[in-house]
């Protein structure tokens, strides 16, 4: 379980998160939606300990990632996979080296098993035979899949997706959505998907929370958000331009 408790975060006196409260249940797929710049990615980075809140707490499996020592934080991070918006593949490494870096560094599997596991994870994300290619030789969609394979290689308990469909064509975006669902269903991974793509949120999530002005203004099932009487929520999900900034 991931619990976000009353998180506040400001950058140069600009408040980004102002008392965010959220609970992510094990095995669920939770989408966090909101306008660009509303702090969705910032919230995701807090969960994995890349950013520290000004106040408030974040508990992963009951342990605070805010106050824990770096060594303990690294133990938590092994349980959390993250797919970055731009995939964040290491330019200087080929696909196989990218995917296997984490498990090689932490010696999670014997050396002779690693190549086989890389091929297995690539197959899981619908790719094969690209182990020796470099990130510069891959398309945007392929990079995201390789990024996902890299995160899954560590066999995480939680997967965080930062705008997984942004910048992709509709067909590729849908394929990525299917992968998110497949990872949740086949591997039992708890997923948090940050997105402003409502089609993606409806498809992958069993719960949707909306961030606005640094706070969660709605949290509920996809069917419930459609019925929400909150005008900000309605304007956002229907794409109405009168959303209050």
């Amino acid at each position, binding site marked *: 379980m991931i619990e976000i408790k009353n998180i506040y975060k400001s950058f140069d006196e600009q408040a980004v998160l102002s008392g965010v409260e959220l609970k992510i249940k094990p095995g669920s797929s939770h989408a966090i939606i909101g306008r660009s710049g509303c702090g969705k990615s910032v919230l995701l980075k807090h969960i994995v300990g890349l950013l520290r809140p000004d106040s408030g707490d974040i508990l992963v499996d009951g342990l605070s990632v805010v106050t824990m020592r770096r060594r303990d934080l690294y133990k938590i991070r092994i349980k959390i996979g993250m797919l970055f918006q*731009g995939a964040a593949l290491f330019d200087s490494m080929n696909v196989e080296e990218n995917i296997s870096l984490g498990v090689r*560094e932490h010696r999670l599997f014997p050396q002779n098993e690693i190549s086989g596991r890389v091929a297995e994870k690539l197959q899981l994300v619908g790719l094969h035979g690209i182990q020796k290619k470099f990130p510069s030789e891959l398309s945007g969609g392929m990079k995201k899949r390789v990024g996902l394979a890299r995160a899954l290689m560590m066999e995480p308990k939680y997967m965080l997706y930062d705008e997984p469909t942004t910048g992709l064509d509709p067909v590729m975006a849908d394929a990525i959505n299917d992968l998110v669902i497949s990872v949740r269903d086949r591997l039992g991974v708890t997923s948090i998907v940050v997105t402003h793509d409502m089609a993606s949120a409806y498809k992958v999530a069993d719960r949707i929370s909306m961030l606005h002005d640094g706070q969660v203004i709605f949290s509920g099932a996809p069917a419930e958000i459609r019925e929400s009487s909150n005008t900000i929520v309605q304007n956002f999900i229907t794409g109405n331009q009168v959303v209050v900034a």
Partner: protein
Amino acid sequence: MVATLTRALGRNILDFFEKSGGMFLLLAQILFESRSVVRDRRIIIEQMHAVGVMSLPLVCVTSLFTGAVSAWQAAYQFEGFVSLTYLGGATAIAIFMELGPVLTALVLAGRIGASIAAELGTMKVTEQIDALECLAISPARYLAMPRFWAVVLMLPVLTIFANFIALFGAYIVASTLLDVSATMFFDSVQQFFELRNVFGGLAKSVTFGAAIALVGCYVGFKTYGGAEGVGRSTIDAFVLSAILILVNDYILAMLIF
């Protein structure tokens, strides 16, 4: 007007302390992570190759001409006052104590320090460093520590090469343009040679190497603002390490010689 100046001064002072503190913290992290130096030997050797072997041609060209011009300038200064029999010794002392270590460090600050800042800066702005953190890999251990030791170890080696090549450059000028024989030149070198001068120069180059690597890594890790930010970091890394090299050189010269 006064308030604006005071604010600007205060901001610069705070910035100075923030950067100095940040660099000391990074140095402490690098030294702490150095316990895995044996485990990470492959990455360190790769970096040593990039720093040492790949910089050798540039260092050779720079030192050859530095030696040549220092012999020519020394001969010009000697004219009418000092015999050219002392040319080899005077040039060798200048090269071993000052020119070899400082110029090699400045060349490496431009070639390696700036490249470290650009590489790590690009990784920072494209979230590759965050990705490393998410894989529970310390960027200080995986990225900074190997680069730090590679520069610290390779700069003295490059300085030794630079010293010999610069001396050779000086000899070429002395023998071809100034009519100084090989015996006269190298006897003078031997007469003035003191091991302390060479080791003093090499000791300086170790600290220069530490400054170059530390500044490159620190500036790289602090990069923000996309491609423009990477460009800014590259310049900052060179300027800051060049200043540190020259200030260090002055302080160490006072202490060692």
